[in-house]
């Protein structure tokens, strides 16, 4: 449709102007984009990646700890816990739309009195994780009128994945991607989230082949990481309290082949259930950890 492409050109132009303006001004012109509240961190991350300042995001302190990047703009409101966004707050100046996810929502009919509610997430569809995430990004883009930026983002992510695959071609060890839940247990990530995607799209083998839950991970005791002795272990920060101090006296940990032979890398927080930006961040982190000699050029087309 010609009108559509005209609008797209206008949107691109506006985006480019905005991008330059953004470096100089603190808040963007929000009148064109609807005010969107996101109770799911993955949606919040995607909105920010699309250049949209979310009107409100849930549980910002924990977002900063677990998703970390991209940072939440200072203008964004904190609307409380993810599964219970503060309705008294939203009711006083409702957003144009609230994006929630199946996990965090109940009785949306009630919320609909306040604002339209859309359930968008990348976990409750039948699609595999990456396709679901792409689909989610496009849907968010339609809501925030940033379709072109979304296509750019998707293309960037695919390029990053390709380059990651090239960068990791030399890695011939299987990899455990884990996050500590206490000094004796880890969440080990498998099929059905971005770790699975990355493994599938690069030549990397996942060292964990056991069962996983609906979010693609299993909670296991440390010794199960010895089941694939030649594996590399990638640990995603943050550590829960007291784990760091206790690991050195943990004999299983210190005897794991990967630990004895120095094949353990810590990477900065990445939201494993997150969106395209998180995937890119995981790519960069994994390349940094597994193939430190290779520099992964930014996926950006510029």
């Amino acid at each position, binding site marked *: 449709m010609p009108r559509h492409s005209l609008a797209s050109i206008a949107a691109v132009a506006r985006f480019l102007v905005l991008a330059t303006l953004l470096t100089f001004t603190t808040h963007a012109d929000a009148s064109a984009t609807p005010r969107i509240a996101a109770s799911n961190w993955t949606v919040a991350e995607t909105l920010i990646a699309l250049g949209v300042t979310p009107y409100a995001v849930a549980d910002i302190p924990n977002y900063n700890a677990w998703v970390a990047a991209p940072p939440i703009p200072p203008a964004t409101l904190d609307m409380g816990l993810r599964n219970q966004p503060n309705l008294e707050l939203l009711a006083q100046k409702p957003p144009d739309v609230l994006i929630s996810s199946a996990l965090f929502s109940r009785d949306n009919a009630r919320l609909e009195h306040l604002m339209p509610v859309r359930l968008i997430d990348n976990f409750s569809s039948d699609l595999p994780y990456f396709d679901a995430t792409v689909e989610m990004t496009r849907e968010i883009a339609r809501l925030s009128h940033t379709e072109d930026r979304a296509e750019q983002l998707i293309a960037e992510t695919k390029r990053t994945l390709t380059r990651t695959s090239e960068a990791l071609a030399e890695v011939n060890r299987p990899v455990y991607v884990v996050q500590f839940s206490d000094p*004796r*247990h880890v969440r080990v990530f498998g099929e059905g989230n971005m770790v699975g995607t990355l493994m599938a799209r690069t030549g990397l083998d996942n060292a964990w082949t056991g069962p996983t839950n609906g979010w693609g991970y299993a909670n296991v005791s440390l010794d199960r990481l010895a089941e694939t002795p030649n594996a590399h272990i990638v640990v995603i920060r943050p550590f829960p309290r007291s784990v760091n101090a206790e690991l050195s006296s943990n004999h299983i940990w210190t005897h794991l082949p990967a630990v004895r032979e120095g094949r353990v890398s810590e990477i900065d927080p990445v939201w494993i259930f997150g969106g395209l930006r998180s995937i890119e961040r995981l790519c960069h982190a994994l390349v940094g950890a597994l193939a430190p000699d290779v520099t992964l050029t930014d996926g950006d087309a510029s």
Partner: protein
Amino acid sequence: MSRTRSPRWIVLLLAAGVITLGYVNLATQFGDLEGHWWQAMLSPDDDRIRQVVLHFTLAPRLLVALMGGAALALAGCLMQQVLRNPLASPATLGVTSGAQMALVIATLWGPSWMLAGREWIALAGGAGAAALVLALSWRARLAPMVVVLSGLVVSLYAGAVSSALLLFHQQSLTGLFIWGAGALAQDSWDDTRFLAVRLGIVLVLALLLLRPLSLLDLEEEGAKSLGISMRKLRFAALGLGIFVTACVVSAVGLIGFIGLAAPAIARLSGARTLRQRLGWSLPIGALLLAVTDQVVQALSPLTAALLPTGAMTAALGAPLLLWLLPRLSLNGARPVTRGAMAMPRRVHPERRLWLLAGVAVAVVIVALGFGFVLEGRSAHPAWMGLGDLGLVIDWRLPRVATAAAAGLMLALAGTILQRMTGNPMASPEVLGISAGVAIGVIALMLLPLGIAPLSRSLGGLGGAIAALLVLIACNRRNGFAPERLLLTGIAISSLLDAMRAIVLASDDPRAQSLLSWLSGSTYYASLTSMGWIVVIAMALLVLVLPLQRWLTLLPLGAPTAKALGVDVDRSRLILLALVALLTVAATLVVGPLSFVGLLAPHMARLMGLNRARHQLVGAALLGMIVMVAADWLGRNLFFPYQLPAGVVAALIGGIYFMWGLRRL
């Protein structure tokens, strides 16, 4: 029970179970090392990770299970002997949950203390909780029932504090859930050594106390005449029990029921003297925990979720407690209720009721009108203007009205229970019906991913009916005697605790929403649901008020009531059914944890509202006041984050309860 029976066959059976399961687990988990098992266990080849894993996990885990079980059994034995109470145990005295709360707090705010010595933090928490429980039941001369009830309330309170903390730190505290549910996984011999040394010392000391402790079996006077300082002896034995429990808790987390079950099994299967009981409980406790842990290990490769051993023992222990109840003789005194039941009668109770009504209206006005107002990008506390009436009606009224209705129903249920059982510590929370509702909801939640609100109330109703059936089945024969009724309730509550721990430790993202529901939030109240709950509350109020004759006569005791023409069994059954309905409706809204059903009737009586009618109305008003205030505080204390009304009410109610118990 025949006198020739001995616990030997139980021990042999359990030992056979441990050996068989242990061998099966060894063969399935370490089949690749066949032939090197002993070598790996004793001196593993450092370069072979499989041998290292076997060395640092298998044997230490078995030994820790055995020692932990033995330690808890020892603690249970000592406590039961000192308090002359077959229901005393580390869990029922609140020691384990007190220790857990102390460790949660230390982990959050003083991680460096943890390194200095977990067991001392756990000891401080455990000893504090036990001291509280004993102080609360001191007036009742440590009557078994009162001790157990105080322990339950202290545990509930510690649980509420932990819940409130975990709500805000869930992502970073997953590990605490695992530990809180008692996971025995080992990664070194440190815990084994830790427990071995401490268990050894405590065991030696306990053996030194054995002879004087046995004299407690005699009449107290007899022991005194033998020149023993009873107070010092009891203090020493209790201290040992608490210390050894704290060691286990700090090493492997919360392990339910072993401390209660092991001595009880020993006693029921024929161990009579203290020496015999101690001698048999230790192996029974050790093997019970080891068998459970072996079963957990055998199941664990099949699932992505983590199965916590401690919570599993608690889940198995609840039915065991139900089975034990009719078989234990509770020869302790009935709770002393005189002080609380006969407060001086006021001349003008009506005047007090009007005052309460006035307070209720004021609280409702504040809860509706005062809150956070958004200005630009920040919110600050202020009164709502008239222009915001729509907002108040849509978003505050449903929560306030729902909280009020729930508070009213819990208060009515508590009043009925307290009058019916003649026990001022009875409440729907204690009776286990709230827990039954929660168990039903959890069971439903674990099935499919998305759940409709309708199925939640059906699940809750199913759970409540199941709890009610259990209550009736276990109590019908003795005519719903108060003590048994409450103990049945305690067993059901502990089953809920176990299920909650298992779900939370499974590290399922849905745990957060479960936790917030269990904590009792009015968040989901809408104008429609509010309408329903208010109508239900009013209907039940209308049903309850005419029953004041029963409620006046039943506290006089069954024989008196019967003589005055009350069909005791039938009236109790009807009242029980009403309590169930009230509790289901309220629990679905504010969760199983609030103390309102306990504290509102109690407060009403302290205000001099002694007659059944006055107490019902006064308690109802107080329940509304407390619940509405709790909801308002929860909504505004940490705006925009919201604490569930149930947790806030529990935090307020718990403090009141502990203060008020001095009068019991």
